């Protein structure tokens, strides 16, 4: 099994926030915590681009390196997870993460900065699979159910791909070489209709 990765396709993302909603709903995430969010560049101007951002499950994760209490571990599938029981909520991982993935609930045992919460690639945590403790602390464990993250599976335009890095890279490669630009883009005709035939010129032979 190769490493599990996310891949966000800015050409396809329509900023619907379906991934954010899927994540919130799947794991019953409280207010103030956003394991996933959609970032839009040049918002409001023609040609704006959006991408969905969460923990990218780095191969050489900076959060793992800076954690003073070493709560992070990596599964055999390359998913970066952490043990909330040991987290002291110091926030070092938040400073180290280039994606702003670590989140801190504001009503936990540590007051304003609770134990860190982040995307688990829907792989739960070190509690027993499908247990109440696992769901309460880390959310649903879809990976143990043989499924992929809810955000990627829910994405209507498949802008967000998640899964085996080799497979999703192949999907993306084929997409890029096939879709072309502008009206050649796959799905353009379905979304905006096919171009109308030019009206026949009077006197022209058909």
């Amino acid at each position, binding site marked *: *099994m190769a490493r599990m990765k996310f891949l966000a396709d800015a050409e396809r993302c329509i900023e619907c926030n379906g991934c954010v909603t899927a994540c919130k709903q799947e794991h019953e995430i409280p207010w103030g915590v956003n394991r996933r969010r959609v970032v839009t560049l040049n918002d409001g101007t023609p040609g704006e681009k959006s991408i969905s951002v969460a923990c990218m499950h780095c191969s050489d994760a900076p959060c793992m390196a800076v954690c003073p209490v070493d709560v*992070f*571990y990596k599964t055999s599938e390359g998913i970066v997870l952490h043990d909330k029981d040991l987290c002291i909520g110091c926030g070092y991982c938040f400073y180290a993460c280039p994606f702003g993935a670590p989140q801190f609930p504001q009503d936990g045992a540590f007051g304003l900065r609770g134990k860190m919460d982040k995307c688990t690639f829907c792989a739960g945590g070190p*509690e027993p699979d499908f247990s109440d403790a696992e769901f309460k602390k880390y959310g649903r464990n879809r990976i143990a159910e043989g499924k992929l993250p809810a955000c990627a*599976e829910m994405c209507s335009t*498949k802008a967000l*791909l998640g899964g*085996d890095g080799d*497979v999703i890279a192949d999907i993306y490669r084929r*997409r890029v070489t096939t879709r072309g630009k502008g009206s050649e883009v796959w799905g353009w005709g379905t979304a905006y209709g096919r171009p109308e035939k030019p009206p026949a010129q009077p006197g022209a032979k058909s």
Partner: protein
Amino acid sequence: MRRILVVAMAVVLPLVAGGCGEKPTVTVYKQGKYQGKPDTQPWDNERFKGDKVAWEKAVKARNLGQNEYERVIAH
């Protein structure tokens, strides 16, 4: 007086020259050892009952299901 000056120069010069030295300033992160509870493999549960091949097959099917070029052709 001259001897004091020579001794002072002998002490000061290496210090000044040392200041010109170049040391690497890139931080090298050293990862600690995981201190938390051990986790199980995703196929070690009541659903897959330790069948790694079945789990990989299920995940692979989901992986490939994201390729709508294949999905649209198939249907």
